[in-house]
């Protein structure tokens, strides 16, 4: 597929995206796994999470320099755009949207703290992600650096929806 054709794809639009020259949304799947042998491409991705977070993305990309009391800069449009697409691809209907946390250097983080998991996803730039998971029930921690294959991260997010506390209580009698 040529670059011009990809650029022509009508993807969701938010204010933070409008500033990006030659914007191209992620239309490929985020996973190396194929679901029932297909790869889902969504021409107009617009999950409830992205709808809910749109204003927050705009806020984070509009922060003034020094927002953190030091030399913090606003979240870059490029970083926010990739994060928004990642949020779209990680969407699980039964889960709340991640919390968005700006970092002083213009990158940003997605956070969930629920179901006895802490998941923190540092979006350092397009295809440059570091994710951490702390499992409070099993007292274990994991960290993954991700460039292209977001399968494991998608599995982490899906696990947030499992009723693991009740399962553990049942297993433990």
């Amino acid at each position, binding site marked *: 597929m040529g670059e011009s054709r990809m650029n022509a794809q009508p993807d969701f639009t938010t204010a933070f995206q409008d500033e990006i020259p030659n914007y191209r949304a992620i239309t490929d799947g985020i996973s190396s796994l194929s679901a029932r042998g297909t790869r889902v491409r969504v021409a107009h991705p617009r999950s409830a999470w992205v709808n809910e977070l749109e204003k927050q993305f705009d806020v984070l990309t509009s922060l003034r320099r020094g927002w*953190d009391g030091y030399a913090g800069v606003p979240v870059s449009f490029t970083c926010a755009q990739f994060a928004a697409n990642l949020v779209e691809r990680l969407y699980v209907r039964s889960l709340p949207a991640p919390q968005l946390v700006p970092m002083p250097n213009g990158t940003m*983080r997605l956070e969930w703290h629920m179901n006895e998991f802490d998941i923190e996803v540092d979006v350092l730039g397009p295809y440059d992600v570091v994710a951490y998971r702390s499992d409070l029930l099993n007292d274990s921690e994991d960290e993954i650096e991700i460039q292209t294959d977001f399968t494991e991260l998608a599995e982490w997010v899906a696990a947030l929806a499992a009723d693991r506390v009740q399962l553990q209580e049942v297993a433990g009698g």
Partner: protein
Amino acid sequence: MAVQPYDEAEIGDEDKIIRRVPVHHLVWDENGGQRRRRISSALYAKSTEPQQGMSVEVEALMLKDGVDPAGYVTSDEFPGAVAFSAAEIRALDLMVGYDPIKDDPVLPDNPYHGEVWRKTEARRFTGAQTNGLRDAAKWYVQIEGVELK
């Protein structure tokens, strides 16, 4: 030009090193069966530029100038602050030094500004360093209804 990372000998081990807490670094945590507001570990991250660190203020410099530190480091945008001792920072294999802000086109002068740096160039603090800072942090200016971790 940015200050090269170094460990400032004038900063004593017992000196308090202050880190402002912006409202954007407060998150909701539903673990433990109770929804509560707390500080994100993002507060304890360094800049991803290899030689840059984590911004702080050195309390002793403010006291020496007769400046009220609690008032100096807070505003509506960053309503709280935490502090560590320099010894706690150094115990994490980190360095702390002066990095005053002066004549920046946007930022106000801050002669009390310092940085916490890694000893080796890297994009991030290690997990142990981030967790260590979080565990060592104590409220300097507490935000009502917000927990440290």
